[in-house]
């Protein structure tokens, strides 16, 4: 049974193959023609969509919903909804104010926001397919939730208001505990604490602010008899060791992390690693063979066991069904797939792009290379930092975002020599890779460029 395979893997037992967990969040809705908004707000559509994912992709484990904005919405953030991606946070209730902690009476209850919708779908799915596949309840990690509430001010707070950050994270961890209770009671086997922004801070800040709340959450999940996973996206390479020390049963990373060295670290802590089929280049824009080849190459590269095959993060809405089916078949029958791609050579993306003449710019140019600032929280906050600078410097600077979801930008990213997203460049120079500059750092850098032109 797929569910047992997944549980055994997360309990670090020997298994016949690596389990397959497609993170089909909004993509599940696409399978039945529902928009992202529909599938994230309607219990019946959510249930039907997840059932369709189960039918088509034969998963060993499956998230019921992939939306990191559920808690933020309850805590007062306005959301911007979209047809083909999860909503993004449009404002931050604690931003630009004196440090403030919301009252505990604002914490989620079973009746808050969209929680009734989610719990309804979870309970029905547990009854229908819960014996066959492991169900994941995804919650927003405390650091990303704190960023949703406080906006990019949080990065400055970490330098100037350390005590406040600790208190705010404590509050956000309380929200997480509520969600853990609801989701475990609704039958979820695995609670994934999803905190994409973890990749955007230094290991020192992780140890200072995040080790304790994350360890408490994973200990709490374990005490309730469920399994836990720590999801991160972006280049979290430097955080893998810190993440392991918080004691989850599993870790999941995206394509920004080189999976082999990352798994070597997680193996030392006996934690299951999961990942990391590239979302855009492979799942969205690649072919069936590309998907199979990525998985086979990955499995062949890794030491066996303690591993879960999955996309790097929430699958793009428009992922072609045949690509996900191919991924499923490679994950479930690697020997067959290995034969099928034996002589396959991936096509090289060949789109001509012209880079600006960085030596002849009229004003400083801030280029933000993102997966998509509407879907990736780390990208959202890096883009927000750039837009904050734009508001401050006005017409004295230019700001542009290149989303990786557009093929031309994949070629541009490659031509710039950028290996990780999000990345911020100033006048063509790669300055911040997977780390969000605080206001002061960014403004100082721009001012330096402005001083040169004066």
């Amino acid at each position: 049974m797929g569910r047992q395979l997944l549980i055994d893997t997360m309990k670090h037992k020997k298994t016949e193959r690596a389990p397959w967990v497609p993170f089909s969040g909004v993509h599940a809705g696409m399978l039945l023609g529902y928009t992202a908004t529909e599938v994230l707000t309607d219990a019946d559509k959510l249930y039907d969509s997840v059932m369709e994912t189960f039918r088509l992709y034969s998963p060993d484990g499956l998230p019921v919903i992939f939306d990191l904005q559920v808690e933020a919405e309850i805590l007062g953030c306005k959301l911007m909804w979209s047809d083909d991606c999860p909503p993004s946070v449009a404002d931050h209730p604690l931003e630009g104010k004196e440090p403030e902690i919301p009252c505990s009476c604002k914490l989620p209850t079973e009746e808050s926001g969209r929680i009734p919708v989610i719990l309804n779908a979870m309970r029905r799915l547990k009854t229908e397919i819960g014996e066959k596949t492991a169900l994941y309840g995804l919650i927003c990690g405390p650091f990303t939730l704190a960023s949703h509430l406080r906006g990019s001010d949080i990065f400055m707070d970490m330098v100037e208001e350390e005590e406040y950050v600790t208190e705010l994270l404590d509050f956000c961890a309380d929200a997480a505990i509520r969600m853990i209770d609801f989701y475990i009671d609704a039958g979820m086997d695995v609670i994934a604490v999803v905190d994409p922004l973890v990749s955007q801070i230094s290991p020192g800040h992780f140890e200072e602010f995040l080790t304790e709340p994350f360890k408490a959450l994973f200990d709490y999940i374990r005490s309730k008899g469920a399994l836990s996973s720590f999801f991160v996206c972006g280049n979290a390479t430097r955080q893998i060791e810190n993440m392991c020390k918080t004691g989850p049963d599993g870790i999941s990373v995206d394509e920004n992390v080189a999976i082999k060295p990352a798994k070597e670290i997680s193996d030392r802590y006996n934690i299951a690693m999961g990942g990391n089929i590239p979302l855009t280049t492979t799942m969205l824009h690649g072919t069936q063979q590309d998907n199979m080849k990525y998985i086979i190459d990955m499995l062949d590269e890794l030491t066996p066991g303690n591993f879960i095959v999955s996309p790097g993060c929430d699958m793009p809405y428009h992922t072609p069904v045949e690509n996900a089916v191919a991924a499923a078949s490679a994950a479930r029958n690697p020997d067959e797939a290995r034969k099928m791609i034996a002589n396959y050579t991936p096509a090289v993306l060949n789109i001509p792009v012209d880079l600006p003449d960085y030596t002849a710019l009229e004003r400083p140019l801030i280029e933000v290379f993102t997966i998509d600032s509407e879907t990736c929280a780390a990208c959202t906050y890096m883009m927000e930092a750039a837009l904050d600078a734009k508001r401050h410097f006005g017409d004295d600077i230019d700001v542009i975002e290149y989303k990786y979801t557009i093929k031309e930008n994949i070629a541009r990213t490659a031509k710039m020599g950028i290996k990780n997203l999000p990345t911020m460049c100033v006048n063509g120079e790669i300055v911040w890779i997977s780390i969000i500059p605080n206001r002061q750092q960014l403004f100082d850098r721009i001012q330096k460029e402005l001083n040169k032109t004066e």
Partner: protein
Amino acid sequence: MTKLLLITGFLGAGKTTLLNRILTEYAPYKAGVIVNEYGSAAVDDALLEGHGTDMTLLKNGSVFCACLKDDFIKALVDMSRADIDYLFVEASGLSDPANMVTILEAAKQAGSRPYNYLGAVCVADAVRFTRHVMVLPALSSQIAYSGAVIINKTDLITPEEADDVEEKVHAINPSAVIYRAVRCDVPIYSLARCRSVSLLPAESSNKRTGRLRAVTLRSGESPDRDKLLAFVGEIGPLAYRVKGFCRTGDGGLYISAAGDLVESEACDLPDVTELVIISSVGISIISKILEAAEKCFSEPPELK
């Protein structure tokens, strides 16, 4: 007109001990009680049983915070209509009573009969007051808005240390009548005569009391008594307060710990162990409890 006395004081200072003394002394009168607890388990409620008073319990926060204020006002309205001579309100440990007068006014607007507000009595923990008043603004406010302050547990400190605590209390509230006591043994009737100075009502600082973390541990197991006490001894220094009724192999045990000081006495065997733990180390208390529990319980206890 019903007379109202408010009892404040930090977690573990001795508020419930004082309230029990008051209810014993005031037995000839008809008394009502509102108890406000920080955690989700009703420990004080159980400790006060047997006095035959009307009791309302307000859990999970401070009655001076926006989240519980409405419930508090409703309780005041209800109690004002009850056939009682005295109403005693025991506030939770971090309650900031600066807005008590405003709340009474709001209760009046909501239909309450007027109360004769006798003011507040604050119980200060002699051992821990100096340390806590530095970091917890609600404690200063509790002193400032009191007519009487009981420096409790003076048997655990030297007379010089007691002088120091008294000096600090006096600096915050020069007009308060100060008593030094062990187990809140003070002339009870005199408390109601120490009316609080008429400080202007202010906004309660209890907007953020939600950040004090109360974890309720539940377990159906009956561990060895010594193991349970060792567990509480391990958690005590990480908590402002640990209290509750526990199951042990030797029968029921009431635990009351404040910092390093752990008190216990036999009680009826509860159906389940319920220990309220108020963390002084933030969320990491969860990991610490679960780690310490491994040596005491065979299954992880339920934490809420």
